[in-house]
């Protein structure tokens, strides 16, 4: 969480449901609380309901059921233009018939600010995104990145307390996107505004956010800071969706406190952290991150659990090596190792022994 963020709820979704056709729910029972100043990302595959949530917050869609509150006040019946929420759209939605300065002045004009004050605020906002000299141009004369900055400045110029961003970087190339990711987070934290950011790009979500809400099937699957999300996914959807992941299927044999014993389908028995398995005999899917698997005997922790593996493929990727193994009947078991001077390059066909710490191995639901 950002510095200076209070824990008082600023944005609240309470038991919110949304259905477009009256039959199937696009958003099912959404509960979410955001403190002031937080940068929260809604991440999920398309059709998971994340954009619908954003549109309900902005006021372009109404919740079928439930309550959305902003600063403690229910905004269900407040039209979008009275909510005072800044928004950055996917394709920027800069008005093509107005200059950049006119675009920025628009929200100030409809708020009936004086001319001098308008000019001053527009100038400040443009300077903030380093676009000060572009006020007289039309949106079509700017590059994608520049339009992006202007869209951001326009969403911020009337000093909203909450800013929504709907996949704002989707149209930019990779390098520019990374630069803008940094600039947006920097700006958001600097101004102390609360931000809800929607994306389907997990890297973007992990690098920018204070917390990430992973959406699937109209529900939040997990709401956690990026590190927790990556290292401690709470179910197999999150584990699969965030980063690369190895799964081994098996049956829970024993649960004692913080560890459990899982017998894999190949017969091997391993230790794991039980996350959402509760009883013995339940089927489970064990998740291990590729970079937490070690095969170098010298580095292997003494408590590490070891398994036999056969090297199937070795891929040189520059900064890392990526090796595909067959482990316990799974042909798609990937391990990643850093390209260090003393690192061993595995040759396909050899038999090796791999291992990991039991705490890196999470027993999740089998669905």
């Amino acid at each position: 969480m950002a510095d200076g963020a209070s824990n008082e709820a600023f944005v609240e979704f309470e038991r919110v449901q949304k259905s477009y056709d009256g039959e199937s729910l696009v958003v099912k029972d959404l509960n979410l609380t955001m403190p002031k100043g937080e940068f929260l990302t809604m991440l999920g595959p398309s059709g998971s309901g994340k954009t619908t949530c954003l549109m309900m917050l902005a006021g372009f869609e109404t919740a079928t059921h439930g309550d959305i509150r902003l600063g403690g006040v229910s905004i269900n019946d407040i039209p979008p233009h009275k909510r005072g929420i800044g928004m950055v759209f996917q394709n920027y939605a800069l008005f093509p018939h107005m200059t950049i300065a006119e675009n920025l002045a628009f929200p100030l004009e409809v708020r009936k600010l004086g001319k001098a004050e308008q000019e001053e605020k527009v100038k400040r906002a443009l300077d903030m995104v380093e676009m000060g000299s572009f006020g007289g141009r039309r949106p079509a004369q700017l590059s994608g990145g520049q339009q992006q900055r202007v869209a951001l400045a326009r969403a911020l110029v009337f000093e909203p307390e909450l800013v929504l961003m709907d996949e704002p970087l989707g149209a930019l190339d990779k390098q520019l996107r990374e630069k803008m990711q940094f600039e947006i987070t920097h700006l958001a934290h600097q101004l102390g505004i609360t931000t809800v950011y929607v994306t389907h790009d997990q890297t973007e979500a992990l690098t920018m956010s204070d917390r990430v809400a992973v959406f699937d099937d109209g529900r939040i699957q997990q709401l956690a800071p990026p590190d927790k999300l990556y290292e401690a996914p709470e179910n197999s959807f999150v584990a699969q969706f965030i980063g690369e992941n190895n799964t081994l299927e098996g049956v829970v044999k024993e649960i004692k406190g913080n560890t459990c014993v899982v017998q894999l389908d190949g017969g091997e028995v391993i230790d794991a952290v039980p996350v959402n398995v509760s009883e013995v005999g339940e089927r489970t899917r064990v998740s291990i991150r590729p970079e937490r698997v070690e095969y170098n005997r010298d580095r292997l922790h003494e408590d590490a659990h070891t398994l036999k593996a056969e090297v199937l493929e070795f891929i040189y990727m520059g900064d890392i090596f990526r090796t595909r193994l067959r482990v316990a009947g799974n042909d798609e078991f990937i391990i990643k190792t850093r390209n260090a001077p003393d690192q061993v390059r595995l040759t396909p066909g050899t038999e090796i022994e791999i291992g990991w710490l039991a705490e890196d191995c999470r027993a999740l639901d089998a669905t």
Partner: protein
Amino acid sequence: MRQKMRALMLVAPLLIFVVVTFIVPILSMLFRSVENDIVPNTIPGTVIALSQWDGSTGEPPQENVYRNLYIDLFKAEEAKQHTRLGTRLNYEQTGLSSLFRTTGRSLDDIGELWQDPLEDIDPNFEEGSFWFEMMSGTGGEDFLETRRELIATMSDEDMTGDVGFVPSMKIIEMLPWTARAYTDFALWAAIRDGDTVAEEDPWESVYGALGMDLTNPDTVSAINSYSGAGASALQAAAANLDQLPQFGFREAFTEEDKDWGSAKVWATIKLYSPSMTPGYFLNSVDMTLTPDGIEMKPDNQQIYTTLFTRTLIMALIITASCILLGYPVAWLLANLPMRTASILMILVLLPFWTSLLVRTSAWKVLLQQQGVINEILVWLGFVNDADRLILMNNATGTVIAMTHILLPFMILPLYSVMKTIPPSYQRAAKSLGATNWTAFWRVYFPQSVPGIGAGSILVFILAIGYYITPEIVGGTDGVFISNRIAYHISSSLNWGLAAALGSILLVVVLGLYWCYDKIVGIDNVKLGG
């Protein structure tokens, strides 16, 4: 180069089609609006003779003009061209058409005034072969060709071919009028009628022309020393001048119709003698060319400026009402769900699949005083049975029916532009604090303006040239300039005036288009995408 040629070949059929059916007619129309060949072509001699006449004295022209008129008019009457000339001149002065028509019928009678006494003096003058022998000779080839050309231009017929006659140079010098009249007769008889010149009795105009020659004392003395063919008959005629009419052709024409003695008639003919005239254009703007210069027509004859203004104003009203009615429909089309929108689209396009005439006639049924709309209004009690609304045969009818007919031309370009405006703009405006109205007016509307522009140009230009609908429901107050053009093309056959009116319309439209380009910019007009 080869590639270019191939590409050109591909577009060639369309190019040729466009040139033949579009560019050529327009150029021809522009030309027709100033063309006035018919006067100098039909009465070439008269036009030349008339150029010496000073119309401001109020006196009719000299005998010489009437003589030329007789020679010109006689062959024109043979070719049935004199009535066309009369019709043409009638546009400028009423009464000239009938003057030419009646005079055409009495040209033979005028000739006989000389023919009868000449035949009494010497019976040889009755014989076609005698005339042929007397007039034939050598050296008159150039003279024959000149006359051949004049007669071809006048009658617009192919006059090439062997005449079997060459005028004698001697006769041409001695009897210039007779030589002209006889050569005209010989050409017409040989080529148009396919007869042998020697076997035909000459036209009455030949006797008249001999009468003209015999009034010249030099000719009389030349005849007396003449010894060629027909010398005795000519000398007999010259010796008995007292038996011939003692008056000239001016008197002969004035006797047939006193209008020929009117300086005003002659002034009009002289004014329209040049082969180009501004007359049609002046007519189109309710002016007229008089011997004293350009003048406005009398108030009760001014119709075209009124019609032009009315056409422009009504086209603007129609365009405006198309925008008002079409904008919401186009907005619905662009924003409704696909299924509903396509049903609505069919309703918009449905009129396109119905005949224009049927649609307009349907409006007749709806709008008339005993029609559907009035019946409903009376039944609902909004309107008294005694004073039903007059919705038809006036400007209201035209505006209502044409707005309906031209509406799709507004809706379609509007729709295709609106379709390209993403909904996110309005959302963005609302998220920035704009009310629905502000979001529409400041953000949506400016982006739909190119569609309004395209639709307006289409509707306005179509409306300004519309003709069927105003003709059917417009009555007299609701007709457009195009109805007048159509009238001149098909009923009054004054194509020159129709062309001038059409040219003015074309210039007005181009001018408005130019203004539009300056103000809105034609690049801002989008028909789609």
